[in-house]
């Protein structure tokens, strides 16, 4: 194997994110080795807070199980600490005495918690808050111990305090500064936060400096410089972190506060890189995940032969304490040249502040409601110019709109850049229907977990059927699981098929068919093979078993000639018990004809009957003289062909009635063609040959609608534009017309 050997030192968040990105880009590029000091596979450090607060289980915070390393052929050196590299000879030494070689090496050693150099820090219960082990220790200790003291009222300290409170301890926070989280919150927000935490039961000792810890076997008290002291069974030190540079420094790699790298994440030693909290770029080190991840992406790209360079990350803070919403970004205190917008509502415990400088957003503190935090970040990052109105709308944003109002492009998980669309896609394509599955497929909620509630909300919504527009449509009918298209494809290729043979060949559960397929199959067969004639399986409408029958002669366009009237008159003289009604369709209905005399009567009338046993174009209704010619033509040409559902056509000079689904009116522009019954929508204005256009429309409907789908619903489903697209193509139009004519001819032949 001549792949380059890449060694990653540190099995933490930045290191493994780098590996993930390398695998995504070019999985076979490197032989990858990972050294990790901790006895665990890669886990999510920032979720230690939720672990302590009881909102996550240990298995929730694992990012990659050991199986993942195996699957990707990563050599995982668990619980092995690298102490030194020999860059010249490309060698590596571990604390356990092992030696290894490398071609390229990445320091991802993170930080070590800063432990104040005070007497008593070596008691077993004076600990930092950094690892799973620390966390486990606290949870275990809380079972028997009572008083917890957290040194440091910063983000980490407060999260630890909130967690220990959850573990049932009596919690004190000791803080040197005047207010908590003084670097991330202005005084007002800090005050509100402190108040809220006090109400939960945490005691604060502000502007207070710790002097020492005392006790016999373990810590028992914390003493302050001012002479006061408090009882303590557990002390958590959260006073800051220090980039872990030991191994790098020992290897001769340039270090200051962190390991010095350029924007390509290279150290001064060729082929050796640093990423994450341990790296120092232009004098800055970071203590958050987002920059670590952004660096990891840049590094992975560079390692895979692309060129990428790291641009400073925008820092923001979000306190992960149950029930408390705090967010801040950018500058938190305004200067004289700034404009400040504040929204404060003490009744709701909300305080939101934006700092604008020359029409750009430079800082924000959102307390009590973090809605709008994404916009805030984007705006600060892009240095976008904005009007006060835009700022006002952010200020007024309220959380709770949540998942339902999200657009596909909206980001759900900021740590891993997962959008709402990504999650929908995972749901639809990969069946990710639980938060856990979404997390596995998309990475959402796998880092800080802040978006977990939103992901959960989205998943619920998706499961409820909302947000999906492409649900697979149902089976053809209740006799089969096959989709309409599948049935159609079969029918199209079958020779001499009948509804029975189709049911048999496709193994329909009900050989006699259901009410739907008894209509739909004959229709479909006729559509594909009009020459075979239309088989009537389901009488339509249901037969009225009566002594008398009625009869509606075909009168194309509803037009009657004097000669026809005379013939009707003669017939009625012969059959005086028969009466005539004028129907709403403007046709004549002869009723009261006795069964046995029906044939004679029809002969007397001298006209064929309107077909009555399948769906078709209903006799065209005409209002006003301008439509006479057209309606007659339509009746003659289209009256007999079967359609997926009855089509009521109306041609009118005047207003249109609500019963017709296809309406035509004459205007100066030509014939306006409307679709829809109650709600009529203009579909097209035909200038020249409106008749051919309607024929093509009807045929296209016949060919592509579901059985029993009304013409207007069909057109809305397909979309007016695509339908017009087909009809405006002369070639298509000609083909459609020809097939319609063929169908009509066969129908006529069969009735003669």
């Amino acid at each position: 194997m001549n792949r380059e050997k890449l060694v990653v030192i540190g099995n933490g968040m930045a290191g493994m994110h780098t590996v993930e990105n390398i695998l995504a880009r070019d999985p076979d590029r490197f032989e990858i080795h990972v050294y990790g000091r901790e006895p665990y596979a890669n886990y999510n450090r920032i979720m230690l807070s939720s672990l302590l607060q009881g909102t996550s289980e240990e298995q929730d915070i694992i990012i990659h199980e050991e199986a993942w390393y195996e699957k990707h052929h990563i050599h995982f050196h668990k619980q092995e600490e690298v102490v030194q590299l020999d860059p010249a000879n490309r060698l590596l030494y571990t604390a356990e005495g092992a030696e290894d070689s490398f071609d390229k090496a990445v320091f991802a050693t993170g930080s070590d918690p800063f432990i104040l150099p005070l007497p008593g820090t070596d008691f077993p219960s004076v600990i930092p808050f950094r690892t799973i082990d620390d966390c486990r220790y606290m949870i275990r200790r809380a079972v028997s111990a009572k008083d917890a003291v957290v040194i440091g009222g910063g983000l980490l300290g407060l999260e630890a305090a909130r967690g220990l409170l959850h573990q049932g301890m009596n919690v004190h926070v000791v803080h040197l500064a005047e207010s908590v989280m003084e670097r991330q919150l202005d005084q007002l927000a800090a005050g509100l936060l402190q108040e809220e935490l006090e109400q939960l039961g945490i005691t604060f000792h502000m502007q207070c400096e710790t002097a020492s810890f005392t006790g016999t076997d373990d810590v028992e008290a914390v003493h302050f410089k001012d002479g006061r002291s408090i009882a303590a069974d557990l002390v958590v030190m959260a006073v800051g972190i220090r980039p872990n540079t030991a191994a790098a420094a020992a290897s001769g790699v340039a270090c200051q506060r962190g390991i010095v790298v350029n924007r390509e994440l290279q150290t001064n030693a060729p082929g050796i890189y640093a990423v994450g909290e341990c790296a120092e770029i232009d004098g800055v080190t970071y203590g958050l995940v987002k920059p670590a991840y952004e660096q990891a992406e840049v590094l992975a790209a560079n390692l895979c032969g692309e060129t990428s360079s790291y641009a400073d990350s925008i820092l923001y803070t979000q306190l992960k304490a149950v029930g408390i919403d705090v967010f801040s970004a950018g500058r938190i205190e305004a200067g004289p040249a700034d404009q400040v917008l504040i929204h404060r509502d003490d009744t709701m415990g909300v305080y939101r502040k934006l700092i604008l400088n020359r029409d750009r957003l430079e800082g924000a503190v959102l307390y009590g409601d973090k809605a709008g935090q994404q916009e805030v970040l984007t705006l600060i990052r892009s240095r976008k110019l904005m009007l006060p109105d835009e700022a006002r709308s952010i200020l007024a944003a309220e959380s709770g709109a949540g998942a339902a109002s999200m657009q596909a492009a909206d980001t759900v998980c900021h740590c891993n850049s997962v959008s709402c669309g990504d999650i929908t896609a995972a749901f639809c394509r990969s069946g990710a229907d639980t938060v856990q599955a979404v997390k596995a497929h998309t990475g959402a909620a796998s880092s800080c977990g802040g978006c977990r509630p939103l992901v959960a909300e989205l998943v619920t919504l998706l499961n409820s059927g909302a947000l999906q527009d492409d649900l697979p449509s149902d089976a053809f009918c209740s006799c089969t699981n096959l989709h309409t298209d599948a049935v159609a494809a079969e029918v199209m290729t079958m020779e001499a098929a009948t509804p029975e043979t189709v049911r048999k060949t496709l193994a329909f559960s009900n050989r006699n068919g259901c009410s739907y397929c008894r209509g739909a199959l004959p229709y479909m067969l006729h559509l594909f093979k009009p020459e075979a004639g239309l088989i009537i399986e389901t009488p339509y409408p249901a037969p009225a078993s009566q002594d008398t029958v009625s009869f509606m002669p075909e009168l194309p366009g509803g037009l009657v000639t004097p000669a026809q009237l005379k013939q009707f008159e003669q017939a009625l003289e012969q059959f005086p018990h028969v009466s005539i009604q004028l129907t709403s369709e403007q046709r004549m209905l002869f009723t009261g004809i006795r069964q046995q005399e029906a044939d004679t009567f029809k002969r007397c009338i001298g006209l064929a009957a309107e077909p009555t046993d399948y769906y078709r174009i209903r006799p065209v209704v005409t209002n006003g003289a301008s439509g006479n010619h057209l309606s007659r033509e339509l009746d003659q040409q289209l009256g007999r062909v079967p359609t997926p559902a009855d089509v009521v056509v109306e041609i009118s000079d005047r207003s249109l009635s609500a019963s017709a689904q296809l309406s035509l009116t004459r205007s100066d522009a030509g014939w306006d063609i409307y679709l829809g019954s109650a709600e009529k929508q203009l579909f097209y204005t035909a200038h020249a040959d409106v008749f051919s256009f309607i024929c093509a429309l009807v045929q296209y409907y016949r060919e592509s609608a579901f059985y029993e789908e009304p013409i207007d619903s069909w057109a809305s489903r397909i979309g007016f534009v695509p339908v017009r697209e087909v009809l405006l193509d002369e070639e298509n139009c000609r083909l459609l017309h020809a097939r319609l004519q063929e169908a009509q001819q066969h129908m006529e032949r069969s009735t003669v």
Partner: protein
Amino acid sequence: MKHSLLHYYREKQKQSEVENVYETQCPFCSMQCKKKVIEQSFVTRKQYKTEGVDNPVTKGRLCMKGMNAYAHAVHEDRLMHPVRKQPDGSWKEVSWEEALELVRDQFQTLQKQHGTDSIGVYGSASITNEESYLLGKLARVALKTKYIDYNGRFCMSSAATASKAVLGIDRGLTNALADIPKAEVLLLSGTNIASCQPVMMPYLEEAKANGAFIIVIDPRKTETAAIADLHLAVTPGRDAALTNALLASLERQGLVNEAFVKERTEGWDELQAHLQTISLKETADYAGVNVQDIEDAVRIFAGADTGMVLTARGVEQQTDGHMAVRNLLNLVLLTGKIGREGCGYGAVTGQGNGQGGREHGQKADQLPGYRMIDNPEDRKHIAEFWGIPEPELPGRGVSAYEMLEKVKDREIRAMLLVCSNPVVSNPNASFIKDSLQTLDFFVAVDLFISESAQYADLILPAASYLEDEGTMTNLEGRVTLREASKKPPGSSKPDWKIICELAEALGAGAHFPFRSAEDVFNELRHASRGGAADYYGMTYERIRREEGLFWPCPALDHPGTPRLFAEGFARPEGRALLTAVESEAAQTTSKPTETYPLLLTTGRVMAHYLTGVQTRRSTKLAARLYESFIELHPATAEAYAIAEGDLVDVTSEAGAIIVRAQLTPDIRRDTVFVPFHWAEHQNVNKLIPGKLDPVSRMPGYKSTPVTIKRHEPALQPAQT
């Protein structure tokens, strides 16, 4: 069933036999997207599909128009051979010999009787640079007429004349499109990019993603305005006033970039004095925009480190379009936003080769290389180059519209019309029809018997863009090479060849010895050498290899000039010119009256191009929008008792049309909008009076007082 029979038959037919691939560029707008048209021959018919081709400008993107642009090129109505009008009005195919002889006889007879200037040549912004160049040369050398102009007047001339006057050079964008995403603020005035140059939108979107603040000035909330941070819904035609309000506010807020103004411009004192006389409130009121918005816009625009101004027809197609653009250039200059990265001014050209079409002598006052026909030195240079005595070179002619007036006055007796459809695109369409019918002899070069060509005595069949190789200069000023490998159908020919044959027939063949478009380009290169639009350093080979080159490119090893004015402006002392502009133009057309209380503005819609002769032939495009419409505010509609979908009579002083009502709250209440892609009773240009901008000779398409009324159908007995 999704599985329509139609689909089924199609599938069955798909035993594709031959496949031809034609590399080309979309002809439908100034983005000049690279694409290929793939022709597949099936048993009985041909099918076409289009694919985008990667390139630095549009990165392989195509809009709906581009996807479907092959339709007109392969349409069955294409002319295959020359056709001559018969006494009974029908058309008869004739041979090229007969056709050319006819042209020669007619032209020469008329010129003998009425002088050389009795022939007018009417060109187009859709033809290649080579063809624009040749057409100019044909007019001046073979026909010796001063009357030549082109339809680009209606598109670009206000911006062109303004840029020329203020900056010294007229190039669509003073910088590359690639600068747009680097701008912190974009001011878009009267340009609906979302509909007109959709593939340019990603540049705006990228800018927006980078945090650009977008200001849109438009009477309508267009799709472009929808992405704006600030939309100034100006009253149509009051752009100069709006800009005055912006400038006055700029001056009052103390935001003028003094250093830039001092070092790189002239005329500030006069302009400042003018601005101080302006009442912000009154001017803003007149423009129909509130003062707060004006102040915000100015503060933001001036406060940004980088920014660009883009304009299009909305500002330019006004009877004070030239001055309105100059006023916006004042804004660019006073804030120092030009000649740097992420800064500049751009006129977003509409037509395919709107830029190149006006650089090489197709315009009444121009000679190749953007030289001026009035300039003795320029005249001398070109006359020498063409090998004719300088006095023989005709002088300045008149604009396209005025040329048609001269036809009406019988000063021009014959006309050669190339790839243009003035009946549909000109204001006052009925006048144009009359005018064309007045001609003694009228020859059109066209793909179809278009609305205008139908009045011709003779139509020469041209090659479509798929069959016509040549360079096109895109809206950035980047010269691109449109390849063409398809054979023209029948005996139709590329325009350059037709021009050469006409020249030959007219006895000037010696000046037109070209065998290929590349030959023409090589002459053009030399002709433009030393001019403002210097193409000398470009060759087909270089353009191919370097994927386009920005002019000026004066030497074979010169990299081209993506960003203009980094150093100085192309004016005396390198200073740009600031100008005081009146808020209300003397010859304004945009004053509503009692009879015509509404203001009409016109524009295009996504699916169509120009007069629609080409796009309406595409079923895909026609299906999207098959008829014209009038956009009006619901409140206005109510006042006139008009409902959605009603047919509406729209009447102005000049004429009347009938279009269908579309109600939308995204338009000013005092304004209505009608797109201009349709002909006959839907031809909105019938409403536009013939008034022109005094400098650019641009008609005022964008603000015409009109009135509207629900159309009462005059019902005739039906005939289907």
